[in-house]
């Protein structure tokens, strides 16, 4: 029975993993295939990675994405960490309401949010472009940052700060030398999260992109509409590797945050 259970369990696990990763594996393999028509057997080649290097549009979009994600990460992490500290530290009117209001941006479909932002940004004169995309990305990644840092702060022992005060450290020294280092794994995880949210964001970017200014996901979408080239597979492979690397880093730091 136990043996059968073990076999069934393993088979189930294998199916799950195949379901999750098989399409990705196929795409990555095709990125290394010389044929542009997905023919088998695979002829191993880096031709699509090389041609990617000469695709100015994709390269520019990639640069935009990295810049935007980095800016989003910095702004979101800074604002979100301060918000999480305020939630953790102070009791104030409307605190529960504000905390509840963090969740809808995660639950509301991005398509609707993107439309809303587009209309609103035009209405107040912000318009479209990288600056509008930055605002959108920050707004959408902020709740994640507040929650991830907040989770780390839940395990933060405030007597550590009292200990620092009793040893003569002023509030600023205490914050920089005790509070920040102790919650740092949570803050870094939140920052990586924000980067990933921005880097992978398509819908909102698509709505808020000015003509001629695109991020990678937007450019890829455009490229696919005009004709699928294995260049996209190569690019996707790079993105997958970077994204998964970041997420693994988040998971590691987050776990570190959990068991201290």
């Amino acid at each position, binding site marked *: 029975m136990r043996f059968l259970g073990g076999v069934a369990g393993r088979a189930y696990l294998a199916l799950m993993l195949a379901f999750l990763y098989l399409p990705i594996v196929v795409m990555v393999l095709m990125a290394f295939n010389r044929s542009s028509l997905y023919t088998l057997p695979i002829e191993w080649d880096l031709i699509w990675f090389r041609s990617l290097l000469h695709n100015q549009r994709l390269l520019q979009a990639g640069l935009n994405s990295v810049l935007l994600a980095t800016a989003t990460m910095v702004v979101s992490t800074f604002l979100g960490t301060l918000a999480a500290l305020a939630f953790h530290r102070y009791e104030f009117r409307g605190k529960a309401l504000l905390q509840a209001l963090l969740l809808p941006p995660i639950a509301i479909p991005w398509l609707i949010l993107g439309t809303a932002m587009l209309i609103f940004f035009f209405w107040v004169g912000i318009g479209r472009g990288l600056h509008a995309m930055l605002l959108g990305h920050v707004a959408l990644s902020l709740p994640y940052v507040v929650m991830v840092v907040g989770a780390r702060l839940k395990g933060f022992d405030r007597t550590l700060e009292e*200990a*620092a*005060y*009793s040893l*003569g450290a*002023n*509030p600023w020294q205490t914050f920089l030398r005790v509070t920040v280092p102790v919650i740092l794994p949570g803050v870094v995880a939140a920052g990586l999260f924000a980067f990933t949210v921005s880097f992978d964001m398509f819908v909102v970017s698509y709505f808020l992109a000015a003509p001629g200014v695109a991020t990678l996901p937007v450019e890829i979408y455009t490229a696919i509409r005009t004709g699928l080239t294995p260049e996209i597979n190569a690019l996707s492979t790079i993105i997958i590797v970077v994204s998964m690397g970041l997420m693994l880093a988040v998971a590691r730091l987050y776990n570190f945050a959990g068991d201290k």
Partner: protein
Amino acid sequence: MPAVTLEHVCKRFGDVVAADDVTLAIEEGEFFALLGPSGSGKTTVLRLIAGFLKPDSGRITIGGQAVDAVPPYQRDIGMVFQSYALFPHMTVYGNLAFGLSVRGVPKAEIRRRVQEMLELVRLPGMENRRPHQLSGGQQQRVALARALITNPKVVLLDEPLAALDKRLREAMQVELKQIQRQVGITAIFVTHDQEEALTLADRIAIMNQGQVEQVGTPADVYERPRTAFVAGFLGDANFFAGRVTAAGGGGRPGEVATEYGLVVRTAHPLPPVGQPATLIVRPERMRLVALADPDGGRPGAAEEPPGAGQRAGDPAGAGEPAGNGFAARVQQVIYSGKTIKYVVAAFGHEFQVMEQNRDDRPLAAGDPVWVAWSPSHTVVVQP
């Protein structure tokens, strides 16, 4: 000049009065205990001294200076927390160096002082360990060393030994006292463990419901508790309540006619005749004498204090002024090695008597006994 004073300090949290008109003076170099049950306000008092709480009214001084407007980090205190609160991201060295480094002490000086402190708490060679790599007792010592390294005016200890197991706790008590003596620092510690307070402290303040019930040396508060609460909190006590029938004085004991119909004599000052009075006797101050006669005859003269011949329900006879005693029956025998506790019954009540385990013919449940004690061990307390 006292090292720390509190004058009429009050602190309330909503409806709860955590510190109610607390006035204390802790002397230079003193090891002072704040003792009380949980919720008695002892931790509040400690946090008021540390500056983590602001008093609603009253005045606190440290080293002769009022600290009402001084934030915790300028009060020049050291603090040991129940959870130790060691900085998890720093090594032992980093933890010890912290207080000096925020004061801008030069690196070489810090290194020297850290080594000194590690020697003092007997942890040399541990500077590169992280807190989670240390045992509970070692963490406790690091916390103590960290609090002492800045040479504070006073060190505050919040249940410093509560997280340790019993054997380690007892070992650390001895060590803590030694270190405090050696450094000569003023220390205030909070505890709910009366034995710990009695063992460690030079003086103890017993707190109850935000108020200081009594301040005194361990012998003072144990032998001469001022209130029934202090008597009961510091150890077991047998209570006798009644009315004063003779005030005593001039070498003659006072007398109280108790609710049991027994007259109890005390050598301590009583309220005026006719007033109610509560008396307590510690179990180890009472002695048991086996009675041969089951219906409560007098014990043999050899075991009986001179003059103690009073029987239950028989008011003090003329010419028998000195002792206290009554006949009872052993209800329960609680054996704990070096001592034996007897629960004896008389007047429909139970009394506790603690005897050293030196008799080779211990009493058994059901045995008739004579309970005897001296008027000087009969303490008058406020109810």
